[in-house]
């Protein structure tokens, strides 16, 4: 608990974290207001549908925002040498990594909760201007909770990716760059592999992005218009996405723990 308390104190005091969350809210706010002004899409952002829309947009921003926090967190420990401060007092390296990841994921969860609050406020205002005419499904609340958890799960992948890179290369820049770059590279590779067809198409279907995109899409499919989502009938199922992302996360976590466990701290 000492490690987690120390990590959370640092997280609360870090301006970089606040700025990343602010950027997230700013983008979500602008996109929701923009969609609200488009009569064809406006029903997607009315309360309570706007919560789902905001969470889907948040999922697509995961690859740009969460690596900033995670890569920074891991790399700076080596860059500043503060890993000595921690390990010379709390030498359990596995606990150190898990505590850092829990802290970052709590921040991700707080960011997504703020997104839910913001989308609720915007949705309610838009409802007041143009009352919602769509029937509200009875299970929308459950779908919203599932999408929130799916966003956290997606976020975990990018957090682990950037944290692993920041740790392996002992550099915040490498962590952030690799985290964000991997997302971009995947999009490019998916396009190329899909176009190549055959075995390459199969590879593209199993890149993390396939699962990361499919999870929120599948969950929100019945409640958001198809133009809003990346409608792809061949995308993996919810269960396949959970397993796929889980396998990638497990590999990243294992690599990170192995590196941290074996490494001599010379920073």
């Amino acid at each position, binding site marked *: 608990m*000492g490690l987690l308390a*120390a990590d959370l104190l*640092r997280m609360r005091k870090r301006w970089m974290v606040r700025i990343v969350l602010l950027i997230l809210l700013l983008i979500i706010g602008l996109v929701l207001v923009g969609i609200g002004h488009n009569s064809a899409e406006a029903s997607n952002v009315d309360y309570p549908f706007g919560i789902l829309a905001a969470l889907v947009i948040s999922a697509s921003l995961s690859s740009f925002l969460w690596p900033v926090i995670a890569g920074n967190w891991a790399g700076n420990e080596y860059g500043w040498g503060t890993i*000595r*401060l921690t390990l*010379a007092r709390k030498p359990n390296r596995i606990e150190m990594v898990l505590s850092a990841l829990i802290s970052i994921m709590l921040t991700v969860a707080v960011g997504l909760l703020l997104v839910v609050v913001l989308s609720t406020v915007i949705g309610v205002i838009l409802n007041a201007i143009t009352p919602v005419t769509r029937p509200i499904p009875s299970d929308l609340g459950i779908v919203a909770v599932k999408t929130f958890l799916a966003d956290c799960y997606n976020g975990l992948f990018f957090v682990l990716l950037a944290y692993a890179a920041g740790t392996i290369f002992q550099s915040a820049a490498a962590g952030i760059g690799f985290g964000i770059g991997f997302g971009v590279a995947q999009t490019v590779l998916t396009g190329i592999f899909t176009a190549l067809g055959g075995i390459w198409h199969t590879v593209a279907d199993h890149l993390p992005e396939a699962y990361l995109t499919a999870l929120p899409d599948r969950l929100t499919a019945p409640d958001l218009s198809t133009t809003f989502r990346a409608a792809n009938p061949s995308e993996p199922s919810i269960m396949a996405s959970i397993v796929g992302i889980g396998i990638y996360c497990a590999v990243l976590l294992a690599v990170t723990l192995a590196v941290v466990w074996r490494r001599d701290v*010379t920073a």
Partner: protein
Amino acid sequence: MSADLAIVTTGLSKRYGRVLAVDNLDLQVLRGEIFGFVGPNGAGKSTTMRMLLGLVRPTTGSIQMLGMTLQAHLEAVLARTGSLIESPTFYPYLSGRDNLRVVADLVGVPASRIAPLLDLVDLSGVERRKYKTYSLGMKQRLGVAAALLGDPDLLLLDEPANGLDPAGIVEMRDLLRRLKAEGKTVFISSHVLHEIEQVCDRIAILQKGRIVVQGSVQQLLSGGSRVDVRVASPERAVELIRALPFVTGVEREGDRLVVLAPVDRAAAVNQALAEAGLFASEIRPHEESLEQYFLDVTGEGR
């Protein structure tokens, strides 16, 4: 391991690729003493200290600290150990006080311990300033406060006087003596040999990863085999003293002669001079500065 020993390393080695950073180190630090760990740059001091803190794993050898095997009881040993390794490392975006709150959370002590320590290291007025705005001396003092936060039995301090002004150095010296009086063991690595000489009970000199010499400061500096003689006619005295059977050599330093002979034969040297009508104005065991001794044993001065 004897209950009197705070740190014992046995055959401790660390190899990085082809470089043997620490070579078969046998170190013994007594409980309640201030132990100096000195050596030229690259001698292996920092690597040794990192091994003592579990940051670097030894290639071979074992470490016993506070009566426990370090590898098996790392968490328990570190819970009773305070440390400041190389330059102090803290989070630059946090204030001095918040950095100590982080350390307090890590070592599991209440935040109420922070204020007295900030007073002790004279940082009370600047505790809310960001760490990145601190001067080197302030950073160093914060590092010492962090090392003391858990009220440890053993302190490992790397260059604790680094960046301190003369008054700060005197305060640091007093603090180390006070810690010793409280029964704590202090292990200091430093290049400031004058400071080591002033505060340490025993030292080890490290060179190329090996201990060249280890023992009490007093014993090492007195040498036990040199006698200083000050006499009016040094030329005649040199000839006379060289002829004595127990003297292995005489070095002349101005009007002072350094006689290479057992200290307990000083009276015999005096007697021989007196019988020849030469009267020594001073005769005493030779005392070197640690600096000179260090240069002699490491060959760095040649």
